[in-house]
């Protein structure tokens, strides 16, 4: 008998009266993994999490966690904790009350409760706030309380439902790193839901890309970004220009006539995903493209370039002054372009 | 008072009327219609308040149509709650304003109750209304032991008694007097319904009748005939004289055995539901219930020996009435033969007219629901005075109710 994954999901599905929120889905997660579910709003991410948590009933399928089948258990029997998008801190309880809530419910002995809370307070830096009420905390602090409340449960599985999406840009970035550090320190298994690609890429061991109730693709951030199989993944994860090209012998002819190396031996019509950093725009009066505009992002400049009738984006480091709009540029290939799995077709 | 004597204000030197559009001082029974009819027609309308639950039908069927036809004066009829109306009129007069009502059919104790805050016009109606000459002279001047000087006309005579369901009680079981009632209650716990003396007239009167039968000698004389009381003195006497000891002793024994109800209707409903076999009632009110099929045909009424109280309610012109002439005409009309006969026939409302006997108006079948004439003549009695009655109710609370 082969050993089973820490979390195994088989054929999990959820239909509502009027729609299918999640088509049958399989997923294995190993102990200690940090998995992200990434997809646009309404694609079924929360539904997925809620079924894991037990606060929504699956329409079909099975879930095993740490060797036991859990899909028919009520939430309070599962050893899973969750950090909610709105934090869902109990407003009538102090930070300490919030942290102790779950332990009391599970009748953890007093001494053990204290030990675990002290531990969580320490790693989440909540020392000064334990006596405060949630409304007396900033968003970031609330977020840490929500996390600590989950950690004290020492759950087999930790779920996050867009825990950062209510925060502002600068804070979001800071907490992202903090969260990851905590995950490493605690060493648990986590499933994290987001629709923010940066968040997904910078945090996850693996990303599960979802769309319209289906898993589109699963892989490490690097693989999904550099070598997505589907158009959807290519487009949802970072910027890309999708073009049709004619391939052969490791090269492809692009619509504006240039030949460039590709990462596949395919021949015939193919769909390419061109990342901005794949092409280097260089001032050249005979170049194939014209700069129509640019977007300065500090570390890099994104140029909108019209090549033939294709509008594409190419980036350059922003160490010197940007190339002005209207300039003609040559597009120099920096790396082999990626060929998508989907058979070619209008890459709209 | 002679029929031709000039009219004088009752109690004071002047009439307490702002709108006397005729010379009241020269009014007599003889010139009554000649003087008042034109003035009343000028006034054009009259506002009538009426307090009694069973009376709208009387006004609407027996008085207003005939009156309006006869004089062409419109009657605006208003049912009122007695306590709210009384307070309204007191307020109006304290503010020295015109009265919203011209004539008010009010509870019998009203003249006594409002003697310090008069709302009754001091017109000696007894002396000038032509119809008054057919009425019992005492009842024209005294209501509930209070001599109001003929300002409050006895429109309706009533009588309390013990109503019972003859289907549930053999004739010999029907208690004949207070001791028998107590014995019956002992034998049939909670089958006797006594209206709370605090909630309705039939219960109040049960209390007074009990006192009138139990008090003897000097005590009884003071209860029945000494009309010089003020409130405080009456209270003091009831509380401390010791005269009432047997009354309280009786009630202390009786009360736990009976159902004390929240009103006359409440008592009657218990009888109708077979939840009580006998209870305190108003003769006329129960009669109305029988007609309305809210009491069974087997319902009967009797009086306890040694007397049960009866009295009446009256009508008066309201002080500062705006249509005094029309009001006087209306009162006169309501006291006339036809309406008084109709009232007796349809409502078992007795009359103070000397020319109508109960047997004239009511047939044998309906007479079953009235106090048999022989018993009435023997046991119907009048009230103690208003201050003593008030004091007895308070004492009842102190002696009985709060000790239960």
């Amino acid at each position, binding site marked *: 008998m082969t050993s089973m994954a820490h979390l195994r999901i088989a054929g999990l599905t959820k239909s509502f009266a009027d729609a299918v929120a999640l088509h049958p889905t399989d997923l294995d997660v190993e102990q200690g993994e940090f998995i992200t579910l990434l997809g646009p709003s309404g694609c079924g991410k929360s539904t997925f999490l*809620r079924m894991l*948590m*037990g*606060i929504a009933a699956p329409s079909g399928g099975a879930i095993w966690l740490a060797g036991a089948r859990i899909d028919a258990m*009520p*939430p*309070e029997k599962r050893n*899973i*904790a*969750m950090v*909610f*998008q*709105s*934090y*869902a*801190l*109990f*407003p*009538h309880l102090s930070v300490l009350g919030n942290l102790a*809530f*779950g332990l009391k*419910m*599970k009748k953890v002995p007093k001494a053990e409760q204290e030990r675990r809370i002290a531990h969580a307070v320490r790693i989440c830096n909540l020392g000064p706030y334990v006596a405060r*009420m*949630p*409304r007396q*905390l*900033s*968003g*970031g602090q*609330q977020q840490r309380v929500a996390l600590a*409340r989950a950690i004290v*449960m020492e759950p087999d599985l930790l779920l996050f439902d867009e825990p950062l999406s*209510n*925060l*502002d840009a600068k*804070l979001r970035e800071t907490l992202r790193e903090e969260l990851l550090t905590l995950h490493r320190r605690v060493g648990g298994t986590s499933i994290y839901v987001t629709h923010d690609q940066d968040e997904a890429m910078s945090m996850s061991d693996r990303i599960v890309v979802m769309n319209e109730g289906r898993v589109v693709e699963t892989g490490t951030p690097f693989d999904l970004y550099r070598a997505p199989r589907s158009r959807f993944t290519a487009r949802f994860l970072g910027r890309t220009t999708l073009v049709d090209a004619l391939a052969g012998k490791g090269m492809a002819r692009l619509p504006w006539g240039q030949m460039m190396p590709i990462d596949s031996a395919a021949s015939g019509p193919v769909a390419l995903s061109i990342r901005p950093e794949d092409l280097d725009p260089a001032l050249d009066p005979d170049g194939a493209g014209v700069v129509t505009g640019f977007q300065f992002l500090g570390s890099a400049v994104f140029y909108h370039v019209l090549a033939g009738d294709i509008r594409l984006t190419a980036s350059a480091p922003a160490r010197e002054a940007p190339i002005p709009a209207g300039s003609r540029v040559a597009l120099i290939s920096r790396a082999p372009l990626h060929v998508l799995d989907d058979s070619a077709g209008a890459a709209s | 008072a002679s029929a031709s004597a000039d009219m004088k204000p009752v109690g004071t030197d002047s009439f307490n009327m702002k709108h006397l559009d005729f010379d009241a001082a020269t009014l007599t029974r003889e010139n009554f219609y000649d003087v008042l009819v034109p003035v009343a027609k000028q006034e054009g309308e009259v506002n009538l308040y009426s307090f009694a639950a069973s009376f709208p039908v009387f006004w609407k069927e027996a008085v207003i149509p005939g009156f309006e036809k006869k004089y062409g004066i419109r009657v605006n009829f208003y049912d009122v709650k007695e*306590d709210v109306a*009384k*307070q309204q009129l*007191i307020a109006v007069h*304290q503010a020295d304003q015109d009265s919203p009502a011209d004539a008010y059919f009010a509870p019998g104790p009203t003249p006594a109750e409002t003697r*310090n*805050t008069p709302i009754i016009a001091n017109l000696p109606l007894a002396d000038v209304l032509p119809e008054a000459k057919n009425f019992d002279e005492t009842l024209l001047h005294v209501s509930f032991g209070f001599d109001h000087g003929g300002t409050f006309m006895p429109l309706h005579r009533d009588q309390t008694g013990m109503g019972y369901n003859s289907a549930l009680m053999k004739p010999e079981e029907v208690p004949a007097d207070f001791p028998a009632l107590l014995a019956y209650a002992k034998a049939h716990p909670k089958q006797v319904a006594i209206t*709370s003396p*605090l*909630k309705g007239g039939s219960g109040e009167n049960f209390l007074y009748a009990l006192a009138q039968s139990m008090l003897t000698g000097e005590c009884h004389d003071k209860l029945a005939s000494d009309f010089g009381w003020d409130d405080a003195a009456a209270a003091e006497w009831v509380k401390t004289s010791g005269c009432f000891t047997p009354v309280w002793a009786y009630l202390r024994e009786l009360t736990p055995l009976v159902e*004390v*109800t*929240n009103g006359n209707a*409440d008592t009657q*409903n*218990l009888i109708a*539901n*077979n*939840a009580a076999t006998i209870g305190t009632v108003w003769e006329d009110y129960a009669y109305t219930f029988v007609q309305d099929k809210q009491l069974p045909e087997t319902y009967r009424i009797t009086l306890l020996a040694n007397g049960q109280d009866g009295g009446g309610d009256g009508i008066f012109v309201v002080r500062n009435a705006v249509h005094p002439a029309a009001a006087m005409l209306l009162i006169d009309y309501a006291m006339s033969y036809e309406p008084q006969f109709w009232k007796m026939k349809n409502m078992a409302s007795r009359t103070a007219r000397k020319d109508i006997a109960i047997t004239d108006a009511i047939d044998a079948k309906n007479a079953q629901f009235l106090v048999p004439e022989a018993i009435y003549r023997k046991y119907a009695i009048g009230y103690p005075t208003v201050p003593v009655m008030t004091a007895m109710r308070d004492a009842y*609370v*102190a002696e009985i*109710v*709060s000790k239960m």
Partner: protein
Amino acid sequence: MSSTTARAPRHDGWPAMKGDQPNGRTIALLLLPGVGLLALLFGIPLVSGIFGSFGLGMGAGRNAGPTLASYAKVFGDPRYLAGLRTTLYYGAMAVLVDLVVAIPLALALGRSFVGRKLFNGLYKIPLAVPGIVVAFAMLTLLEQGGFLSRVLHLVGLSLPRLVRDPWGIGVIAAMAWKDIPFMTLIIVGSFAAVPEELLHAARAFGASPLRAFLKVRLPLAMPGITAAILLSFIRSTGSFVIPDVLGASYPLPLSVLMYQAFRDSNWPLVYAIGTVLMLASFLILLSYYFLTARIVAPAGGGGR
């Protein structure tokens, strides 16, 4: 809450160009129609009533005061003391029954069931039924020999006394009948204001449905529920006609005693009883403020 640190406090109301807060006169002018009218129509009579309870200003010839006689009566006469007790008893019991029915009903209304919309309208009917009509309906229903006892009689049962009974069952039932929709309405709203996510969180952290209700939903809905309790209590203590028709003839609640004093034109006593009733309500109101100051409003933090 949408952002991290506390956001700038907003201006309130109109941003006037002459400084950001509207000045006192503008506020006074806005308050005037409502508060002014109440001050005139309600304040003046109220003050004269309170004076009246000391026998002051009762009109020519009736100015008996200043005297504490009426208060002495209310607090000295066993009838009135018992009245005060009865008032509090009826109020408390009615509220208790209200709660026992309204809370489960509010929970049921939060779920989906066939015909929910219609039910939502129908259960509120008693809100529109005058007290006297309620009393009348209950009397015909609960009275000995009334409808209910006739029905029970068919199956050989007999009804205990529900009207004019020493425990005031009929009175309490009628008061509750009239107030339950009111209570339910407020509690439904208070429950709905508790974010569902918090209940999910409670479940996620190991609470059974019952415990999630007791530990999270109930405490968070408490400010609304206590307000409903308070208002129902005040409505019950003020109710006159229901105890008058359905209650035992002794002891009578203060509301009925006040009406009797009114009947006897004993104005100082009417006003004294009124003042005592008012004070009782006011004390309860104050203790409400005191208690709820400690309970967090659900809208505070944690929500979205």
